[in-house]
């Protein structure tokens, strides 16, 4: 599935982050991270909880001012101001949905059009032909995006009244309304059921096919490895490894970061012995307890490793 990239246009670097470091007082949340994304790519960013993924996102989109390092979009360095970043062509969604809850679905998307329109207060007050034309064009574009995300039949509903999955979609539609060259998705499938996750996957592919590069944070590994051409792993604020899904999946440091490294000594053997003892015990009692016992053994092992 990941091989059907539409690489008709020559590869161009969309995002180039160099040496991004973010310190909060004594805590270094992100340390010297480099990342590039090219046109037509879907890049995943994974890492355990607290690894600094969202902080890194906030540095990229200007919500945080990185302590060190630069972020460049298509060769121009971005100032750390969120509205200028969006204007340049990078749009984002949020981990915990941040829609304009008391605006309608259509209005939400129209707000996303803000940087691509320029009618100010005077033209709103005078309502000349230019204003009407611009409003009509914005609405048409917004309706296209709502059709694209399958929300067009809900245009006049308040965003707050949408079900969860549709709120996520609306957030993506709103971000797309700013006509970005790079879309940053922060956990787009959090809280979704498998069908909704599949639908989101399709949506992300469709976005990529429009020529928009995507950078996505996610905890759902199946989603990430299905979707991404390249995956970067962030652990404790540092980039551990970057490569295709096979490379990342095979890297033992990644496994260690998620599951921990085994001790090189007795504790593991004892744990193993315990598991085996438990298993044989369970086999004697009957088959019911086996799975549980095995899990308990795993858990014990994990505890030992810390």
């Amino acid at each position: 599935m990941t091989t059907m990239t539409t690489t008709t246009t020559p590869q161009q670097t969309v995002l180039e982050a160099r040496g991004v470091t973010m310190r909060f007082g004594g805590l270094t949340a992100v340390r010297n991270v480099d990342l590039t994304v090219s046109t037509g790519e879907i890049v995943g960013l994974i890492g355990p909880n607290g690894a600094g993924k969202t902080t890194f996102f906030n540095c990229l989109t200007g919500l945080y001012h990185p302590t060190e390092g630069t972020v460049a979009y298509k060769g121009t360095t971005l100032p750390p101001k969120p509205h200028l970043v969006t204007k340049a062509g990078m749009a984002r969604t949020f981990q915990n949905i941040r829609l304009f809850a008391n605006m309608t679905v259509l209005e939400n998307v129209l707000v996303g059009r803000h940087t691509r329109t320029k009618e100010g207060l005077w033209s709103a007050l005078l309502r000349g032909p230019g204003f009407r034309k611009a409003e009509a064009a914005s609405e048409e574009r917004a309706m296209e995006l709502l059709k694209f995300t399958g929300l067009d039949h809900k245009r006049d509903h308040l965003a707050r009244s949408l079900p969860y999955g549709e709120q996520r979609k609306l957030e993506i539609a709103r971000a797309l309304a700013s006509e970005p060259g790079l879309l940053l998705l922060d956990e787009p499938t959090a809280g979704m059921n498998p069908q909704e996750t599949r639908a989101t996957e399709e949506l992300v592919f469709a976005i990529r096919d429009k020529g928009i590069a995507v950078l996505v944070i996610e905890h759902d590994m199946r989603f990430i490895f299905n979707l991404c051409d390249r995956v970067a792993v962030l652990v404790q604020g540092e980039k551990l490894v970057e490569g295709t899904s096979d490379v990342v999946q095979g890297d033992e440091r990644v496994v260690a970061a998620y599951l921990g490294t085994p001790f090189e000594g007795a504790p593991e053997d004892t744990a193993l012995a315990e598991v085996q003892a438990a298993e044989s015990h369970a086999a004697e009692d009957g088959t019911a307890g086996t799975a549980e016992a095995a899990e308990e053994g795993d858990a014990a092992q994990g505890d030992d490793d810390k």
Partner: protein
Amino acid sequence: MTNTETTPVVPLPANTARHLTTAGALITIASTFLSWTWTSAFPGDLTVYGYPAGLQIITLVTAALTLLLALTGYKSGALARLNPSRSNNPTALAALGTFGVVWFTAIAIAVDLGGLVNLDPGGYIAAVGALITATGALGLPLHRNTRDSLHTPDWAERPALAPVHRALHTLRLAKPPQARPTSTPEPWIDRLTITVGIALGLVVFTYGIGTDDNASETFIGYLIAITLTAIALHHSGALDRFTNATTRHKALSAVLAFVAAALFPFTQSNDHNANLGVNILIFATVALGLNIVVGLTGLLDLGYVAFLGVGAYAAALVSGSEFSRFSGVQFPFWAAALTGMAASLVFGVLIGAPTLRLRGDYLAIVTLGFGEIFRLAVNNMDGTSGPNLTNGPNGISRIPDLKVFGFNLGDAHTFGSFTLGRFANYFFLMLLFTAIVVLVFTRASNSRIGRSWIAIREDETAATAMGINGFRVKLIAFALGASLAGLSGTVMAHVNYSVNPQPYMFAGAAPPNSAFLLAAVVLGGMGTVSGPLLGASLLYLIPEKLQFLKNYELLAFGLALVLLMRFRPEGIIANRRRQLEFHDTGQLDIPEQQSLPDSTTGAATAPDATKAGA
């Protein structure tokens, strides 16, 4: 919908109850043509036979409405339009309104004049009639909340307080379910509804403003009547029909509303009421300007009245008054208005630029501070404790009247049989400005910039991440609000002949001050056009008409605000967004033009049901 039940409050057979209501209403109507008291000392002169006056007129209207609503229960077709919900709740509420007005009057007569002996037989007949109609109406099957569905507070569990709680929950009236209109009505019906509604509004408003300032009793009766009538119409669904019609014909409604407002001076023979009218308009217009800042952009500005002051002082300085620092300078009015606006705009930007970087509570505190700084600075710029600019606490007085196209607004003018005095002239000028501000508000709010204001109110971080330059957009809102206040200030300076620092404070006993302005916006309904206009009218009229409250005004005002925030936090006129925000009904908000054509069951049977019912 298991939370509501259809039961009477007073256990009576439904038919008996209906007859009682009708009979009681008829008796009450008849009684208004009798004398209620022997002396004309009671305000309104209720002594005349054959001619209702004062509180009797209010009683007559509410009783007639009760009668009409009661008659809708007897399968009379033409009246059904008055009560689309076909519920008995409106009848009960109107009957309670009648009862409230009549018994308030009777008690007021007894208290004011010292004893029940002062009541004439007419007064007793009215009291009995009102009692009968109220009892009868409460015996009708009403839509009510079930006792279990209402929240029981902790204090109600104490034995001593339980009866109080039960008394408070006697009525438990719930808004009856409304049949969704099956099709949009013919445009002429909508236009007729709007015209009738606005005309009624004008009549009701004119009556309220026309009540004698010293007759607080009449005004209280008026308030009782309009409050309960409004709730009755709300329950009947007639109010919903009216609002739906106005949303379908926005331009027509706006034009008619302004025509009605322009007719107001012609209904008044007394220039004093025109003075009230123009002051209400000024107050309402400033509140509407504040609504851009507070209602749309969500910036809590506690020093807004300072911008009104800047506009007023700027206009006074260039008015040619001999007390002005520039006494030789007399701008034509259009130039003075622009000067006032420009001065407020400059102050708005100067105050906004540093403060708008703050959010929430901090912004409120800083604007409060700036508002007070304005007043103190103006107070001290008298040439001794500061530069000589504003003439200190004495202010700038003897501001000459305006001349517009050679038309002196200070003179009375006669049109046919109507004489329009000075304040009526200013009323028309101010009405023009109000129209401008309404236009600015609606156009700005429904555009790219207005959407970005609302987005910032909803979630500033997300708004900036969507490409909105938060600071710039907030500054535009702040400056626009300031300049609109300045525009109103220029008229205010001329209407009041003088400006002084006194009214431009944070909180005071009379409008305008920042607290009252904010209250007008919140009470009326944030983010709407009609809300602040209504809120401002109420907040101006009530202190003006209830003179006896003078010392307790702020107390009553605070109490009213607390009650309103408890029971209707979205304000009297709710914006659709805010209504949903505060009363999460769990229903999806489906706009009515898409009223599900495939749900044939409800749609097809409803008109038949209405016909059968009628």
